[in-house]
């Protein structure tokens, strides 16, 4: 199947599901309008959701995505307690700076999710991405090392493995 068609089908199903969840369907007219609007969205913006072919099987990707969500929430809760501790501490024990990390991911969607996850996890915030060299610039609230290999290990690697399974 061509990839644009595939993308359109996914967008249509997703839009329709969201419509059914948002409106308490009492009448066939509501369902008809939902289908109409989903079709409109599909033809206007359907081809942008999926742009590259993935190598893994969909079910396997979905399972890895679930694992990823749990890991992500765990990291996020840790991040919040860390920042809360820093903010409450009377001396403000911070040591900020911008460091570089490397990434092995190649797909746009994977790098986007990695950057967003890094922003929401302990003490780190993605500032910029160098797409040619596959490097991310990270503002880190407590710099423990400036060496690129060590920072990669500490910040990026915990997500990278699962993200490779999901998005590549």
């Amino acid at each position, binding site marked *: 199947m061509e990839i644009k068609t595939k993308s359109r089908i996914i967008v249509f199903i997703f839009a329709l599901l*969201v419509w059914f*969840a*948002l*409106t*308490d369907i009492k009448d066939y007219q509501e369902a008809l309008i939902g289908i109409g609007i989903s079709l409109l969205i599909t033809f206007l913006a359907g081809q942008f959701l999926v742009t590259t072919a993935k190598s893994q099987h969909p079910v396997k990707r979905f399972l890895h995505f679930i694992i990823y969500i749990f890991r992500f929430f765990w990291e*996020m*809760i840790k*991040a*919040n307690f860390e*920042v*809360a501790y*820093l*903010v*409450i501490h009377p001396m*403000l024990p*911070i*040591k*900020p*700076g*911008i*460091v*570089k990390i490397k990434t092995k991911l190649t797909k746009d969607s994977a790098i986007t999710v990695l*950057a*967003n*996850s890094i*922003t*929401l996890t302990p*003490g*780190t*915030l*993605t*500032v*910029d991405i*160098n797409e*040619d060299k596959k490097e991310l*610039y990270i*503002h880190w*609230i407590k*710099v423990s090392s*400036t060496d690129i290999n060590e920072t990669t290990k500490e910040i990026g690697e915990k997500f990278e493995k699962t993200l490779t399974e999901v998005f590549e």
Partner: protein
Amino acid sequence: MTDTIGIILICIGIAFDFLGVLGLVRLPDVYNRLQAATKCVTFGSMGILLGVIVMQGFTSFGFKALIGIVFIILAAPTAAHAVARAAHRSKIPLAKISVVDKYEEDKELIDETLKEEVEV
């Protein structure tokens, strides 16, 4: 019962929102403040919306809150990234306490690649 759990979740959310705001006031420069603002406020707002879901169940009301959570998770880090990058590009300095700035060191290189892109 669900009401109690919902209210507890909303209280946790408000507490983290408060800590985020406190961080916004106390931390030194724009980048550190963004850290507090994105993390704590995202988590806090998620807690509040989660409380709403628990109290309302999966009615159309609760589902709207769920969609709110998804969009907060997607939008908050992206916005923080955009603000941080814009701040650095308009030469707002890091706080004096900072130890390293690899981005500044590589900046000329990035600017050159940008120029090439514009020319192409």
